[in-house]
């Protein structure tokens, strides 16, 4: 199902251990299309990645051949849908190193996963004077849920500073963790800068100073590197399907079993109960306690297939390939005096993943985006749902190019030639 196409006559296989990008590209139908008369160069993967044929086919096959509600019926289709849905949960659990499938809650995505933790885990714990510690590089989805729960409980949100180079200032962070810190929430990989945070080091630091739960926004990490929640030693890990080549509208939350078991439901409804009377309702066990209503069955199954796809390609190979693209991009851009690359670390080789944020002298990111789009190059321009970070960096917006496993060095060169066109118009 996920096997790459055979080599054409005369085609040379890639070097051992390297990614055969051309063959991979052929499994993503959308990459063959043109935009404004140019071949699509899709460099907006941090916003949402594209899907391989296998994922599209799995979702389609579910609807065409066996779809029914899960966990409801005794008929054949319901049994099959239930089996496939739960098998997908198992794939997700294995993918992030969870010890049990029951530690994986299907959600609509990272945003819902983080809201779930804020409301079901943090809200009962938090009170006036308690603190939720974030970092300055967080996405709005890892800020606003905490602000909401703090408004409800009288706790307060604090944000640990980052350095000018785009790293969390770990000394300052450590000083901000205290006995009132109940939750520490941070991105594994920054969506705007690509910074890879050392979650294991942060978790150690937190455990030494407080009993706070460590909540990780993994949306930008899971498509790009091998993630193992037990090695990270975090308590919750949230991610989305659509950024990892899976369907939209599905994501997951991993939580430590004993924490999930202690948490009240997030939503009320069907599937999350054992017994309902008008006097009293008994809730079922995790993960179903947190999955009220009919779940996104076909997207969850598609997510399982996306995971198989990623595993068949190999996350270590993906990471190496994307890192080579990133180094190439930063190297070329650093030679352009009218381009400023943001937050790539204090030294070459700082841990970064698949994202380059930049500004062009004299040209606003939106104008850059329009000019690049005319050449078929899709990037993101704006604040990347990280307005506090933009303020910290002193820019209203940036141009962000973000890579996926199917991007090529030739596409990096097309991005750069697009930037030269920007310079020609605005220089």
């Amino acid at each position, binding site marked *: 199902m996920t096997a790459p196409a055979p080599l054409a006559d005369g085609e040379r296989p890639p070097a051992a251990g390297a990614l055969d990008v051309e063959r991979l590209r052929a499994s993503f139908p959308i990459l063959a299309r043109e935009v404004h008369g140019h071949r699509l160069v899709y460099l907006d993967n941090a916003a949402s990645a594209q899907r391989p044929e296998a994922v599209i086919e799995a979702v389609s096959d579910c609807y065409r051949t066996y779809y029914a509600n899960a966990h409801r019926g005794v008929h054949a289709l319901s049994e099959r849908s239930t089996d496939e849905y739960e098998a997908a949960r198992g794939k997700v659990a294995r993918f992030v190193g969870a010890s049990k499938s029951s530690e994986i809650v299907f959600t609509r995505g990272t945003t819902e996963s983080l809201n779930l933790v804020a409301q079901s885990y943090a809200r009962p714990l938090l009170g006036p004077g308690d603190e939720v510690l974030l970092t300055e590089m967080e996405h709005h989805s890892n800020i606003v849920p905490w602000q909401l729960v703090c408004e409800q409980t009288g706790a307060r949100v604090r944000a640990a500073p980052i350095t000018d180079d785009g790293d969390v200032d770990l000394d300052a962070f450590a000083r901000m963790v205290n006995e009132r810190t109940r939750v520490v929430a941070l991105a594994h990989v920054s969506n705007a800068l690509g910074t890879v945070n050392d979650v294991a080091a942060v978790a150690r630091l937190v455990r030494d100073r407080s009993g706070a739960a460590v909540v990780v926004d993994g949306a930008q990490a899971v498509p790009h590197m091998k993630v193992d929640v037990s090695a990270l030693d975090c308590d919750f890990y949230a991610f989305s399907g659509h950024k990892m080549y899976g369907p939209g509208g599905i994501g997951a939350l991993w939580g430590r079993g004993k924490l999930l078991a202690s948490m009240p439901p997030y939503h009320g409804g069907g599937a999350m109960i054992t017994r309902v009377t008008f006097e009293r309702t008994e809730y079922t066990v995790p993960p179903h306690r947190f999955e009220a209503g009919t779940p996104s069955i076909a997207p969850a199954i598609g997510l399982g297939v996306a995971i198989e796809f990623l595993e068949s390609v190999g996350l270590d190979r993906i990471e190496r390939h994307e890192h080579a693209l990133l180094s190439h991009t930063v190297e070329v851009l650093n030679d352009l005096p009218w381009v400023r690359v943001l937050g790539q670390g204090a030294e070459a080789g700082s841990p970064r993943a698949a994202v380059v944020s930049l500004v062009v002298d004299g040209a*606003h990111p939106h*104008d850059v985006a329009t000019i690049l789009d005319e050449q078929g190059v899709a990037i993101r321009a704006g604040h990347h749902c990280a307005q506090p970070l*933009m303020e910290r960096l002193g820019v209203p917006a940036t141009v962000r190019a973000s890579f996926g496993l199917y991007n090529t060095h030739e596409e990096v060169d097309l991005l750069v030639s697009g930037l030269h066109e920007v310079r020609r118009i605005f220089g």
Partner: protein
Amino acid sequence: MSDLRDLYQQVILDHYRAPRNFGALEPVSACAEGYNPLCGDQIKIYLRTDGDRVDGVSFEGVGCAISTASASLMTEAVRGLERPQAEALIASFLALMTGDGEAGVDLGKLEVLSGVKDYPVRIKCATLAWHALRAALEGGDSEAVTTE
């Protein structure tokens, strides 16, 4: 197929690089803020009126070439107009951008922005300042107008 040269005409680039009437206005009759939540662009319009006459308009903010040039050209175009004329100019400019309805008045130099209508996602950049000016003419100082 639209052409980038139609979008980024020299007049637009000139007003982007050297925006006219940029900065706070003192004294001022009304202020209004415009906000495009999609891109984070923010603009503040200062309006000074003398009776029914627009005595002066200025703006502050950070934006793209289209939004900055549109605001800059607008400040020049509305100065000296009577209130009904200013309102008609706003309506005509918005009609030009959205393609809804007829431009009731001659837009003159503002026609350089007509290329924007071929770039639907950028129309809000061009109209932001105009929505804020309309709010200022209506008294201003309420909540920021947004493009959403």
